[in-house]
């Protein structure tokens, strides 16, 4: 009988069988097949805490807590968790904005893993240049290193015009200058850095400048949110992966005249919502993505 299980194998099995394998691993089984430097992180996005729209999500107040519970029950411990923006739904009232941010923070305190990173979305930050968001979560752009990968979190939302801005771009240039050309670099952002579909505001006005700075590096992958659906696109050798939302899905880019939330399907509750796990294989600079639903079947 095997004493341990390879993490990738576990993920495949979990995808097929779900909770049985997860609960079986809860007793502390180790991922012996994984190289020491490989690791796993979880991305959640666009939780829009405070949103009220029963037609698109009658469980707006319950979806985030369910997602927190789902992450806690993955059956193994991710190295860290990242939220890629729009933690809260926008409000013109600064007091209400802070109330929503506080409630969001308190809910995600329920995550068993305490190594949690945050990014802002335009709903959180664009109306006050990120002031309230920073009160709760600190600097809106930063970098950190984890097991051989250099992570960069960009803020392309605190400027209401969706610009990264000269100051942050200069910081990015300086940050990247310390990285070798073949360094493993992962970028987190809220909005797409490329012009995905500007007609629906799915772009960053000066995102091309950030991509230009990243281009000399051979191994760059971007994980972002904003568009409430999975989307995968290359700009040159740089891969961009958008995540699902945890409040409502949006239609595929340009697939209909207006960008309107997809209605809740009572026959398939939480359809189109979810979070993802990313299995980082550092040597290969490979990131295997596993999509998870809000609620396990």
């Amino acid at each position, binding site marked *: 009988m095997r004493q341990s299980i390879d993490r990738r194998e576990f993920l495949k099995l979990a995808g097929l069988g779900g909770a049985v394998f997860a609960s079986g691993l809860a007793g502390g089984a180790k991922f012996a097949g994984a190289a020491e430097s490989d690791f796993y992180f979880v991305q959640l996005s666009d939780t829009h805490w405070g949103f009220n729209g029963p037609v698109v999500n009658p469980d707006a107040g319950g979806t985030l807590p369910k997602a927190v519970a789902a992450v806690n029950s993955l059956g193994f411990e991710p190295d860290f968790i990242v939220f890629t923006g729009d933690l809260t739904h*926008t409000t013109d009232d600064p007091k209400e904005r802070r109330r929503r941010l506080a409630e969001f923070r308190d809910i995600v305190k329920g995550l068993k893993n305490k190594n949690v990173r945050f990014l802002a979305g335009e709903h959180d930050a664009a109306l006050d240049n990120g002031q309230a968001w920073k009160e709760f979560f600190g600097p809106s752009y930063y970098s950190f290193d984890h097991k051989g990968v250099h992570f960069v979190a960009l803020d392309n939302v605190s400027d*209401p*015009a*969706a610009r990264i801005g000269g100051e942050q771009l200069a910081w990015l240039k300086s940050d990247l200058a310390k990285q070798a050309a073949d360094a493993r670099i992962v970028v987190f952002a809220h909005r797409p850095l490329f*012009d995905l579909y500007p007609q629906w505001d799915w772009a960053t006005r000066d995102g091309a400048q950030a991509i230009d700075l990243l281009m000399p590096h051979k191994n760059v992958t971007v994980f972002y949110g904003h568009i409430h659906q999975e989307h995968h696109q290359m700009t040159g050798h740089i891969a961009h992966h958008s995540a699902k939302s945890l409040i409502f899905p949006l239609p595929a880019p340009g697939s209909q005249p*207006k960008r309107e939330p997809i209605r809740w399907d009572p026959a398939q509750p939480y359809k189109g919502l979810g979070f993802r796990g990313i299995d980082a294989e550092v040597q290969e600079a490979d990131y295997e993505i596993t999509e998870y639903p809000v609620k396990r079947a």
Partner: protein
Amino acid sequence: MNSQRRRLLAAGVAAVAFGAVAFAQPKEKVIRVTARKWVFLPREIRLKKGVPVVLEFVTADVVMGFNAPDFKVRADIIPGQVARVRLVPDKTGTFVFLCDIFCGDGHEGMSGQIHVVA
């Protein structure tokens, strides 16, 4: 005639000629659009392919943006100022324009359409 007078006369002739040319050019149509929380008025703009127009934008609310990505024109709309963009539609069809400066609770629905006919 001394050289200074010749220069003045030449300048005067040139000014008259320039004025005549300017006067002879058909005046471009101006369409005024009001941006307010959270709507453009009018929402629908009808244009003819190849016929230039000037779009004028005003707002009394907060800073907003006009962006018509299919025509690569945009402008900041600042309270108390008139923003102008010149647009020469080079294709027919229906195209989206939107506010591209996050301006409040209803920002994401703030868009309109440009209809261009042959």
